[in-house]
């Protein structure tokens, strides 16, 4: 029990007697902040996550390294000394060799250079579609989570409708509207599929944070609604959503590959990983590398993204007590 101030208006005897002890204790605790300060610095709860021993770990950095190599190669493809990816450069269906690192396909084109060029489409679509999904899903989720009530019911109902479509079929039906398929069209198709799960995640996080006391504290200081959403809620929602988005990029890359396998991604001769896998299908018995090599690249890319995303999610998984 805290101490009543000695000159307070006639405290009951109950408080007077027990209050003295509390005063003594608090005085002792107050005594020298300076000597307690070093202790302060040792308390793991009061040190940033980094210094408290939370690390991303070697697996994360290997995953990031692998992904960075693939991404940089894809970005720099036009300037790298690669063999042509559109015209045959050797005999068809050659196994991997020192000349053709991943072999050649059924037309004699270099699989290695096609895999790098194909990465451009896959990564572009993977990131663009998720950015699209983040933008629209984010808006829907924040509004639904903050406004609640009927707005939330309507918006989340729409999201449930979107979710109830089989996702690949939905993307398929969107891309099959047109024959002139550019990478951005494929991105929008996959992005639309990504809106609903992102909106759900954003809404859930917005709900949690908008009921935190700091939001009411901001309101009690006269902050406007937009200020609360942009300054108080969104910066808190961004972290969990971003780590989920990295994993979604991997899903989108696989989705693009699935569309390409069905011949519904960007039009040939622009190579895509899914298209290359489909190309090798008839020759799977004699020349398995034609399909397997792009499979391997796809696998490594998706694995790297998943590992990195998972690790980031764990890293930013902030416990209540740590706040």
């Amino acid at each position: 029990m805290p101490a009543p101030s000695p000159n307070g208006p006639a405290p009951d005897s109950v408080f007077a007697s027990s209050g003295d002890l509390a005063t003594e204790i608090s005085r002792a605790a107050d005594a020298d902040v300076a000597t307690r300060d070093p202790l302060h610095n040792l308390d793991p709860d009061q040190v940033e996550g980094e210094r408290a021993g939370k690390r991303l770990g070697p697996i994360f950095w290997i995953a990031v390294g692998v992904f960075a190599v693939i991404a940089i190669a894809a970005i720099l493809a036009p300037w790298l000394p690669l063999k042509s990816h559109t015209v045959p450069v050797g005999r068809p269906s050659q196994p991997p060799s020192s000349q053709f690192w991943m072999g050649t396909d059924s037309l004699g084109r270099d699989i290695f250079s096609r895999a790098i060029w194909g990465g451009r489409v896959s990564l572009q679509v993977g990131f663009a579609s998720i950015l699209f999904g983040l933008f629209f899903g984010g808006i829907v989720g924040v509004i639904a989570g903050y406004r609640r009530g009927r707005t939330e019911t309507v918006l989340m109902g729409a999201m449930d409708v979107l979710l109830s479509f089989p996702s690949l079929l939905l993307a398929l039906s969107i891309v099959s509207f047109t024959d002139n398929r550019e990478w951005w069209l494929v991105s929008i198709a996959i992005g639309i599929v990504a809106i609903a799960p992102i909106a759900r995640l954003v809404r859930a996080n917005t709900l949690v944070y908008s009921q935190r006391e700091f939001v009411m504290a901001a309101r009690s200081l006269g902050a406007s609604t937009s200020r609360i959403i942009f300054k108080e809620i969104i910066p808190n929602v961004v972290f969990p959503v971003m780590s989920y988005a990295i994993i979604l990029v991997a899903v989108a890359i696989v989705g693009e590959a699935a569309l390409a396998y069905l011949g519904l991604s960007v039009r040939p001769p622009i190579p895509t990983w899914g298209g290359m896998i489909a190309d090798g299908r008839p020759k799977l018995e004699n020349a398995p590398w034609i399909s397997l090599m792009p499979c391997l690249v796809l696998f490594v890319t998706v694995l790297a993204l998943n590992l990195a995303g998972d690790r980031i999610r764990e890293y930013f998984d902030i416990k209540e007590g740590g706040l």
Partner: protein
Amino acid sequence: MSTPLLEVSGLSTSFVTDRGVVRAVDDVSFSLDRGKTLGVVGESGSGKTVLSRSVMGLLPKKNVIRTGHVIYDGVDVIDYDQKQMSAVWGKEMAMVFQDPMTSLNPVMKIGKQITESLRHHLGLDKEEANANALALMMSVGIPEPAQRLNEYPHQLSGGMRQRVTIAIALACGPKILFADEPTTALDVTVQAQILDLLDAQQRERHMAMILVSHDLGVVAGRTDEIMVMYGGKVVEHAPTAELFDNVKMPYTEALLRSIPRIENPSHTRLEAIPGRPPNLISPPKGCNFAPRCRYAQPKCVESEPPLITEGAHSYRCWFPCGTDENREALEKNMAAGVSVGISTTGGA
């Protein structure tokens, strides 16, 4: 004497829920002068927090019915919308919240959180706001304030964080500070420091304060008046000294009795109030406290006592403590072997 700074009359707040309408605050009236402190005491669910948020207008509009008058500085703000209130919030009324762990934004630096409202309300530029923030941090007793401004909330201890929330609440010089259980989430040793800090700041700024607590000990030495709430109603309201000298309401008496006394021998059984607070969806017909009251009589269950006012002291009881009726009621109950309460029909 001039008009009071804040005058609340007949304030009622109800929540519309699926199971019915909950009257969380029921016909509460009080007034508060500049520089004075009002303590609001009651157990969990008695409506203290809802009362302070109702007065400030911080409750959501949806499914909330708020009636009565909240006259601040001569103007009734009960019908103010969010936009009108945001001019009042921060500058005129501010609130310190219960849990400093959740009342600071975890991803915003402390300096930013303090300067935000300074820049918003007072229109200061960045440097002025920073200088002000530094002064505020010093005035609430934070060591190394310049360094702390650049830190995040998780780098501070609970007591420090509560000091920061107080600094934020005081930033724009409010005339009324609502302290909603400001020490409940803190260690006992830190509690006294924070309460002393609030006291000192209040005196320095000649600010009115509403101190909400479930602990009579917290409000005992630090308030001018105390309002005891039970089931959303004010059951006793008196100047602090008068309340402790001359308890009228059996509920207040029971609260006082349930405070552990240091002069008691070890292992003395702590007296508790049996039962639970009333169900506010369908409250009992008579006195809300009757089912838990040791003096309860049939009359208590049949009709609700009005707020009886004797000078500055008011209470809601048919058999107030310290009167002959009260002693007779207790004797009658003892003779009948009823230790506490009286069976009621309505209610929980």
